[in-house]
């Protein structure tokens, strides 16, 4: 509708331009006529005033009247043309006024159309924004409901926590920020969460680690890569960077060193995972240094680095509740354009590692099914609307 109006407006503009050109031509003609007719009129008036009326009629007017064009005196023709010219001028003035009015109306209408289009765009943007927000809220609700329901029906799972993470490059480092998003716990379970944590690694080190993981993955997926080649890549990587830790005094060890050490462990874990064997490795000869590096909590960061399913455990003494033997499984989830991780907690005295993986897989399927169901219902509703 608006498009048709615009097309009509364009047609009107075209007509107006044509009329303006005609008007300009007439204006030029008018100027020429004025330049010729006015001096001629003044000249005739001068003759009349300077001479007697009889002489004027006899000598001059009769002289003028004797000029004929197709048997009609030229003066009559000039007189007739002048009258016609006046009539045309009056009618054109009227037309001009109407054209000016149409031009004004047209401009007003175009302005109104532009304003309406702008409003329509703003409404559409607002509507889309609200739709996205509502969709996000609904997704959050479904995710929370699914996890809660799963937790109630699966007593072997003690808690499920959601973390989001973002990474940023700065000063040759990659910095990862981890934030707690939401969590659900079973009755009578004490569970801690990491509200916010930062971990950083040197970019060159991180890139080489990623290369190692890709080489291991290639070996695991198609078998075209030779195992010796994979082991060489891993050992070369560790040999190159291990001095960063071993050359340091134990008292100078920081979280950054624990992150570096975690990467070595992760690389070796990943290598052994290709043969799917349960292992608990130690890398360093210096047990004290190893204990110090293990004292930092970097497991969640490990799972983020790995971008895959990851399992870890803690044995912790609690003054009020005794010993906690906790087993954790974490898996990645890309949710609402954010990178997130679900972290499941189990009691390692009652749940085996295999069972923990199986229970995690079950939650994975429940979330997927709930959201797929919701998407389908939403799609049907959208198509019906």
């Amino acid at each position, binding site marked *: 509708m608006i498009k048709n109006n615009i097309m009509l407006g364009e047609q009107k503009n075209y007509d107006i331009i044509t009329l303006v050109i005609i008007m300009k031509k007439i204006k030029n003609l008018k100027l020429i006529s004025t330049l010729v007719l006015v001096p001629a009129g003044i000249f005739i008036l001068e003759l009349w005033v300077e001479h007697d009326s009889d002489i004027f009629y006899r000598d001059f007017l009769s002289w003028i009247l004797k000029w004929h064009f197709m048997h009609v005196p030229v003066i009559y023709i000039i007189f007739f043309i002048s009258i016609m010219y006046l009539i045309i001028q009056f009618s054109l003035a009227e037309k001009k006024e109407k054209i000016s009015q149409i031009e004004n109306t047209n401009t007003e209408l175009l302005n109104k159309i532009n304003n309406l289009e702008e409003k329509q765009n703003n409404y559409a943007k607002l509507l889309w924004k609200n739709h996205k927000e509502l969709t996000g809220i609904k997704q959050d609700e479904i995710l929370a409901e699914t996890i809660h329901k799963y937790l109630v029906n699966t007593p072997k799972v003690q808690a499920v926590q959601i973390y989001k993470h973002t990474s940023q490059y700065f000063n040759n480092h990659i910095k990862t920020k981890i934030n707690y998003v939401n969590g659900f716990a079973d009755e009578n379970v004490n569970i801690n969460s990491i509200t916010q944590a930062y971990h950083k690694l040197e970019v060159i080190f991180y890139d080489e680690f990623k290369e190692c993981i890709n080489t291991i993955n290639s070996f695991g997926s198609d078998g075209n890569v030779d195992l010796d080649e994979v082991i060489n890549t891993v050992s070369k990587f560790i040999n190159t960077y291990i001095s960063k830790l071993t050359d340091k005094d134990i008292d100078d060890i920081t979280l950054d060193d624990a992150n570096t050490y975690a990467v070595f462990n992760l690389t070796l874990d*990943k290598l*052994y995972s290709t043969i799917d064997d349960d292992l608990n490795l130690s890398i360093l000869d210096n047990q004290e240094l190893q204990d110090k590096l293990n004292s930092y909590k970097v497991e969640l960061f490990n799972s983020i680095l790995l971008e895959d*399913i990851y399992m870890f455990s803690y044995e912790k003494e609690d003054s009020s509740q005794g010993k906690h033997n906790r087993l954790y499984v974490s898996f990645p989830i890309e949710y609402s354009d954010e990178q997130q991780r679900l972290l499941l907690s189990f009691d390692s005295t009652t749940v085996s590692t295999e069972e923990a993986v199986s229970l995690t897989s079950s939650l994975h399927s429940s979330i997927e099914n709930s959201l797929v169901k919701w998407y389908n219902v939403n799609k049907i509703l959208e198509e019906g609307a």
Partner: protein
Amino acid sequence: MIANKEYITKKLQDSFKNNSAISIKVKSANLKEASNFSKVINSNKVNLRKLIIK
């Protein structure tokens, strides 16, 4: 070639023999009994891929 933990461990130990700071040792084969451990799960084998929700 049969890929097993002994083979991988042996190869790694050989490659680190010139670096006295590194000592690859398998502490425990049973993770459940280990006090603190971490383990990469082979996601291809447990069919647990990254969940993408958009």
